[in-house]
């Protein structure tokens, strides 16, 4: 049962990643590309969490937590750079 649910989850997140990649290439503005990257980070965190369930190892969550932090800092850095022309003032 759990195997089917995990397969569905992996498929959904993978398909979502493909759609985000399309928006990353297509997206008319820079803000769209930042948003696509942010969503890709969220989907990859989901994949890591599901992989943690699939393998039964608790070490995957450190990776997920680190990716959540790095993704947030990266998004804010991109936005800050576009707003101020500088990241750390």
């Amino acid at each position, binding site marked *: 049962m759990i195997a089917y649910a995990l397969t569905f989850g992996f*498929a959904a997140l993978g398909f979502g990643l493909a759609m985000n990649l399309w928006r990353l290439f297509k997206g008319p503005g820079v803000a769209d590309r930042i948003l696509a990257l942010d969503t890709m980070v969220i989907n990859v965190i989901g994949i890591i969490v599901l992989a943690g369930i699939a393998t039964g190892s608790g070490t995957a969550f450190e990776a997920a937590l680190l990716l959540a932090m790095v993704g947030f800092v990266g998004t804010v850095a991109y936005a800050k750079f576009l707003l101020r022309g500088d990241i750390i003032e």
Partner: protein
Amino acid sequence: MSADVSLAEWLVSAVIVLGGGFALVGSWGLVRLPSLMERLHGPTKASTLGLGAMLVGSFLWFQLVEGVWTTHELLISVFLFVTAPISANMIAKVHLHRLRHGEASESGSSAGRVPSLPGGNDWATHQAPHEGTPGDFAGD
């Protein structure tokens, strides 16, 4: 015991499928919706909620099936639910800022238009340091 584990497995499977569906809807919204302000809704709400559901599923799985108490999921979900609105706000500000400078275009859909503020005011995105503000380096 076996029925107990089976129930937990059903529960975790349902939550994971729910989360996968929400994540898919969020990514589909990012592709489908016509303007950036509408596209912001998909990832910030649906994807975050889907990831929260998957984290709850992981929490339940490790608690009920593996018998391990983990708090990482709670940490990740709290962090995500705090940071998602902040990053969305930053992206919206970038969009407004670039609209004002004519570097971004707005789609023609009615929901995509940025509403104007009363009193001739404009949305706050960036204010260059000027006389009397802490960032004023002109006098140095």
